[in-house]
């Protein structure tokens, strides 16, 4: 059994840039601003992916061609994490790496979908429309596109490109899938079911098909950008953010044995599915917090603020539920909240891993910078300058439709072990 789970690698790519340094710089800038672009369909804005040289993590053009952008983004981010952990290109470690990918739907060819829809609409009757559908799909779909679009093929491509072969599982189900991927990976390590795990996901904001997926849920913001806490009315909702986020999690003993650097400790994780009756999500988060708060060493005495990296999306009523939870938390202890979604946008399956990565990053930088934390990204009532050094960081995830999750990230205590 492992006594601790360490984060030994982070792979992060978004509209803000690629890698830990770029994200630290962007999020600690004097006046951090979001990177925004118009989506293919107005009025929705997106946070577009930064410029990326795919060759650096997916060297073979043949592999690149076998993937659509969503799979490439995840495969790229996974490579960044494996590199960061010193696991990349080490067959012995890769053979022991258990992978859990949180995946959304494979992307669709919107031109084909539009053409086929029109052809069906033009058919004089249902029977003809059915024939037309068969004919058009048989001719218009590229055979390999099926695989380039298949949800579990992001994991498949990570195996092929990076050689991760310990095991491969793909979770589905929006934000909760992203949280469950990290949660299960950590629990497996704690129970001795594995020693090394790669967990995370990706979200490609440039996909027009995803606007439809989330607009039928009235989940997208249709107003100009404001920070997540300030969204309401027509502006309520999330702005899609391109995001690739993977974590390498490792049993502390194994990390020490191979001389790997621990970036931070993943002290606790929890997931719930409250069902979203009013107040239920806040209550679920409160239960989860009660299960882990004793693990935060600052509890009570030091008075140092608990950092909170919130996965707030801007979508109501999740925002109201999270606000309720944070109010309760703030009544108990000083907290210093940052809604990273204001700058990253919402990357659904990838968001929870991304915020854990940012928490680990802050903790590792903090040691060299006197307890620096991300400055407020918004002048709202939660996002105040930290009164004192932040030590432990709570990551929250309140799914747009369903699912709640928390993670507690802490500094690694080296006590001669």
């Amino acid at each position, binding site marked *: 059994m492992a006594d601790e789970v360490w984060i030994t690698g982070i792979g992060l790519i978004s509209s803000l840039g690629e890698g830990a340094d770029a994200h630290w710089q962007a999020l600690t800038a004097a006046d951090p601003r979001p990177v925004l672009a118009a989506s293919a*369909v107005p009025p929705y804005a997106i946070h577009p992916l930064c410029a990326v040289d795919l060759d650096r993590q997916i060297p073979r053009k043949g592999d690149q061609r*076998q993937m659509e952008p969503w799979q490439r983004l995840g495969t790229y981010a996974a490579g960044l994490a494996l590199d960061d952990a010193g696991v990349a290109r080490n067959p012995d470690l890769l053979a022991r790496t258990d*992978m859990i990918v949180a*995946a959304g*739907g494979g992307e*669709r060819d*919107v*031109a084909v*979908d*539009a053409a*086929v*829809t*029109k052809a*069906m*609409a033009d058919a004089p009757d249902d*029977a003809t*429309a*059915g*024939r037309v559908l*068969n*004919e058009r799909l*048989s001719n218009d*779909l*590229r055979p390999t596109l099926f*695989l380039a679009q298949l*949800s*579990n*093929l992001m*994991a*498949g491509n990570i*195996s*092929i490109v990076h050689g*991760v*072969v*310990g*095991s*491969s*599982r*793909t*979770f*589905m*189900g*929006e934000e*909760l*899938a992203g949280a*469950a991927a990290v949660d299960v990976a950590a629990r*497996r390590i704690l*129970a*001795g*079911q594995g020693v090394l795990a790669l967990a995370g996901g990706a979200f490609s904001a440039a996909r027009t098909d995803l*606007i*439809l*997926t989330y*607009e*039928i*849920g009235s989940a997208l913001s249709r107003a100009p950008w404001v920070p997540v806490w300030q969204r309401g009315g027509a502006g309520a909702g999330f702005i899609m953010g391109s995001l690739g986020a993977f974590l390498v999690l490792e049993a502390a003993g194994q990390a020490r044995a191979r001389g790997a650097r621990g970036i931070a400790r993943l002290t606790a994780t929890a*997931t719930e*599915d409250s*069902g979203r009756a009013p107040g239920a999500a806040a209550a679920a988060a409160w239960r989860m917090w009660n299960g882990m708060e004793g693990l935060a060493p600052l509890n009570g005495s030091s008075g140092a603020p608990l950092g909170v990296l919130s996965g707030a999306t801007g979508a109501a009523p999740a925002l109201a539920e999270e606000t309720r939870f944070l109010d309760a938390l703030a009544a108990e202890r000083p907290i210093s909240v940052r809604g990273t979604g204001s700058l990253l946008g919402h990357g659904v399956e990838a968001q929870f891993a991304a915020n854990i990565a940012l928490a680990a990053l802050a903790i590792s930088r903090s040691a060299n910078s006197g307890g620096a934390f991300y400055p407020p990204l918004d002048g709202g009532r939660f996002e105040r300058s930290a009164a004192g050094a932040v030590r432990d960081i709570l990551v929250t995830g309140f799914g747009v*439709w369903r699912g709640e999750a928390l993670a507690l990230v802490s500094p690694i205590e080296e006590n001669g072990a």
Partner: protein
Amino acid sequence: MSGRRPVVVVTGVGVVTPLGIGRADNWAALTAGRSGIRRITRFPTEGCRTTIAGAVEFLPESGAPSPVLTEALAMLAAEEAIAGAGIGRRGAFPGPLFLGTPPVELDWRQRLALAQAGGDTAGGYAAMIAAARGRTDLYEMALFGGIAHHLADRLGTRGAPIALTTACATGATAIQMGVEAIQRGETDAAIAIGADGSVNTESLIRFSLLSALSTRNDDPEAAPRPFEKNRDGFVMAEGAGALVLERLEAAQARGARILAVMSGCGERADNFHRTRSSPDGGAIIGAIRNALDDAGLRPEQIGYINAHGTGTPENDKMETLGVTAVFGAHAASVPISSNKSMIGHTLSAAGAIEAVFTIETILHQRLPPTINHDEPDPAIPLDVVPNVARDAPVAHAMSNSFGFGGQNTCLVFSAPG
């Protein structure tokens, strides 16, 4: 730690296939060598290379969009498994849900209806998106987490449900996730389901474009020919399998009948190719060996193998290679049969359905046949239980599942002590 880990047992199973609803009907049909493969009537197949499938056409939801049918199939199997186990109360299952399903999305009729509602059938996604807001009904159906959340609500399972996909290994992975949660001590019980209701135009054509499907349309019942010389592909099918998993002591304490012991799970990801196994069979061999190691069994103790046996030229060749490599001299004498010869390939459900039938094989000490075995393939020197069921002593049995994307899982079940 394997010496002291909790023993996991199966106390309830449920199944739906093209052969019928429930354990009794399915086992009778399966051991009678009956086929559930028919000409597709659900949608027009003119112009399709393959026009046959093992569709489930006897449910009220049979003509509904795939996610709706998938949910109905999952619910039927789960209710049978839970009733059989006699665990919990109706709507209050005392453990988490692990659900294997295919990725879901809007179907063509829904896209067309949205484009029409958007006032411009030539307008593609812009028109669909214009009519999208407020279509919560479509949203909850098309979300990846939708089916799992609905089932968790209806079954009253505990904690956040996990929906997952590992392509054709999905059902087996769901079972493995449940086993691991019990072994970690997180729960005394779990329900694992694999379900798939995706016989629809687009899925059929996509698999067809990969040249994966049998085109033996003139004689549907003779189309799936696993391990036979003239096999030409798999036949898509629908169904669901569900297992109630429990910690041995917990099952004994409540006086439950133990159907089988879940004695081992093994997995291995392949990094060779998106649809093909590594030519040396390395990943398949690894998964089989890992399962045997996990169960603490030698190959010669396995009395029966429930094959992945899809009936594609490639799969059956590679599975033979894997079994032969691991079982050595014993390979020719261990019976191995493919349920897919009768029910077709139920894709995301296959691992769970075939686990149920593997357990039935142990309970009845009777081997279901591989039908359509007219001409043996000289390259496959295995006892495939050709055409006719037969009695045999089976103390330990293995069920294989190998998926596109390189995800390979093997489960070992044993007769209760």
